[in-house]
């Protein structure tokens, strides 16, 4: 590829030198100049001529090589020698530049997705072998040194380290891993040597799945792409036919019209008739947009979805795990007669031997070693709580019923969530509130949605009404529906689908589990936390690798920017082409402008498309 480009460049330079020589040297015999022009022309364009001849036999007369060859040979025929050479030269320069630009954008998108591991160090026969990751089988032990990419999904059997997962999720905070932790391919090992037992073949590893998805995404074509390729299909034949008419009819019907003059104008038409400038920048823009999104950890499965995102009118979210963390945590401690920390400590100790989810939350909040010697007696009362002797004190931890049973005077709490009542030595010591927490990122996400003209944000949840209403009002949502069964969610999404405008889109964001029917029903189904979850990657149109809903709002921004650039490019290309066609039909501009309208426009459109990659993500 590079070799081909270099030889192309040398050809162009030699041809250009001869062309300039011929322009500056004025031979006495004009023939000498013309011979130089022809030499320059042949050097610059022999490959085009050859391709053109080949295409005639195949009946491909609307091919750009053929059109360019006819246009320039035609120019020779009417003695426009410098024009003929210039058109061919600039066409070649433009093509070369176009190749560079496409190549560059291919590379920059590829570097966005630079997660493919090149090799794996695998233990075989007591020795370490460096092999292609696709040649490693399940159960083999691989070694990952600091700075290396983890080549295959697996479980750590030796060593600990932190992993850089930025390439997969856009998340900059490294993840700590140790023995028995599952690790995903594509992460980079920061320090420490890891021995990993492979659990998936390369083809099924996370890294392959992600790469496949992004590469295939541009195969699902957007409406803009379909429009432009249809346009190109009709555009070229029409322009060529008009060119033929232009060469024949005016010289016949206008009295003093010269044939060569009109032929020249017709030839300009042929130069402008190539469709490539129109067609190339559109898929490139989408490819760039999908690349930019994947860099921040959002996988978009098709150009059509990227296009649709820009028209988002309604966002429907699941609650638990999407807007909230989905983990029950101690949110608040209201201690009476003791410091907050002591109440939590007694509660955590009393629940030390319990397997109840609440005891887990308490222990997690306490976050210190529990000295089990201090617990002398525990008794779990099913459906009510725990009675325990901690540090010589009688501790009761449980719900209202437990307090009533032991005749403890307590203050009833009206907080949203699970309230744990604590009594020490038969005296009420306060309450601990355990609840799911709204993600900090959700606030940012809702604001960004509104900033991006989303008309309505709706939350659908199976959770009870009072918790849901509190979440909805804190997040300032437009609508919420609580206590829903899966089929109720389908009902509401169907109803909301009818409320949007005909071109508007509805997004559903869920955790990808149990959401399959709604994901399929909505215009765009988004699954959160896709890292490591095959089901989510399978079911959704867009997968967010982290658990931040704001990433979807960011994707809407990328989508809008992509669509803006796509529209600019379509308009720019069509206006310039039609403008130049009209001007050259009246003989106002020369063939030079026609060359610009062809290759100049496509190069500018490509450069414009590359701007998408410059989106900063926060």
């Amino acid at each position, binding site marked *: 590829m590079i070799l081909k480009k270099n030889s192309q460049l040398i050809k162009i330079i030699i041809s250009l030198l001869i062309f300039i020589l011929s322009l500056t040297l004025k031979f006495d015999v004009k023939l000498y100049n013309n011979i130089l022009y022809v030499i320059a022309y042949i050097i610059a364009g022999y490959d085009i001529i050859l391709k053109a001849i080949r295409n005639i036999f195949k009946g491909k007369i609307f091919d750009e090589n053929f059109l360019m060859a006819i246009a320039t040979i035609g120019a020779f025929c009417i003695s426009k020698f410098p024009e003929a050479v210039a058109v061919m030269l600039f066409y070649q320069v433009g093509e070369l530049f176009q190749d560079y630009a496409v190549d560059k954008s291919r590379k920059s998108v590829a570097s966005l997705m630079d997660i493919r591991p090149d090799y794996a160090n695998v233990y075989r026969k007591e020795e370490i072998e460096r092999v292609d990751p696709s040649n490693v089988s399940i159960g083999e032990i691989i070694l990952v040194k600091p700075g290396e990419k983890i080549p295959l999904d697996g479980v750590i059997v030796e060593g600990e380290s932190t992993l850089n997962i930025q390439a997969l999720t856009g998340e900059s905070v490294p993840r700590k891993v140790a023995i028995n932790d599952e690790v995903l391919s594509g992460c980079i090992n920061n320090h420490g040597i890891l021995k990993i037992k492979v659990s998936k073949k390369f083809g099924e590893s996370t890294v392959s799945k992600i790469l496949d998805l992004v*590469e295939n995404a541009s195969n699902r074509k957007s409406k803009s792409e379909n429009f432009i390729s249809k346009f190109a299909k009709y555009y070229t034949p029409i322009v060529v036919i008009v060119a033929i008419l232009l060469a024949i009819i005016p010289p016949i019907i206008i009295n003093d019209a010269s044939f060569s003059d009109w032929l020249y104008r017709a030839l300009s038409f042929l130069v402008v008739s190539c*469709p490539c400038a129109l067609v190339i920048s559109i898929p490139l823009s989408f*490819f760039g947009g999908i690349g930019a999104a994947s860099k921040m950890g959002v996988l978009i499965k098709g150009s059509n979805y990227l296009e649709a995102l820009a028209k988002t009118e309604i966002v429907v979210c699941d609650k638990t795990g999407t807007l909230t963390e989905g983990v029950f945590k101690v949110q608040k401690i209201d201690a009476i007669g003791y410091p907050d920390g002591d109440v939590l400590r007694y509660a955590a100790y009393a629940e030390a031997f319990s397997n109840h989810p609440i005891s887990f939350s308490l222990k997690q909040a306490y976050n210190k070693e529990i000295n089990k010697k201090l617990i002398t007696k525990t008794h779990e009362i099913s459906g009510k709580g725990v009675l325990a002797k901690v540090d010589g004190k009688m501790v009761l931890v449980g719900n209202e019923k437990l307090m009533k049973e032991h005749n403890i005077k307590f203050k009833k709490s009206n907080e949203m969530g699970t309230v744990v009542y604590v009594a020490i030595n038969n005296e009420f010591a306060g309450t601990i509130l355990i609840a799911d927490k709204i993600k900090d990122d959700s606030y940012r996400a809702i604001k960004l949605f509104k900033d991006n003209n989303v008309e309505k944000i709706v939350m659908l949840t199976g959770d009870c009404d009072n918790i849901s209403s509190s979440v909805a009002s804190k997040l300032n949502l437009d609508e919420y529906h609580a206590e829903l069964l899966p089929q109720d969610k389908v009902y509401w999404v169907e109803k909301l689908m009818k409320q949007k405008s005909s071109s508007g889109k509805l997004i559903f964001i869920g955790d990808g589990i149990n959401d399959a029917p709604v994901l399929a029903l909505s215009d765009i189904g988004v699954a959160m936390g896709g890292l490591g979850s095959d089901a989510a990657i399978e079911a959704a149109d867009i997968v967010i690798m982290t658990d931040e809903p704001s990433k979807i709002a960011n994707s809407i921004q990328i989508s809008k920017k992509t669509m803006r650039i796509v529209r600019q490019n379509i308009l720019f290309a069509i206006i310039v082409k039609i403008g130049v066609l009209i001007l050259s039909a009246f003989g106002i501009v020369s063939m030079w402008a026609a060359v610009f309208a062809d290759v100049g426009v496509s190069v500018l459109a490509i450069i414009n498309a590359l701007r998408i990659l410059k989106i900063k993500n926060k």
Partner: protein
Amino acid sequence: MSIYKFKIKNLDCVNCANELERKLKKIDIINNVSVNFITQKLIFECSEENKKQVLEKIIKIIKKEEPDVKLEEA
């Protein structure tokens, strides 16, 4: 049905890629085929026993339509 992927090199432009894709779609024993200019990928779907036959047909069409184009194992 299996999906096969090849690297497709030396395509001139998006239009040529679309044109080639249209031609390849006419192969009767092929299920899904896409020619992607940007990613330089040819992807098609067919049954395993037909793979050889399909590939031969594809190569024949490519030779006729775009003689400069080369297919490589991806």
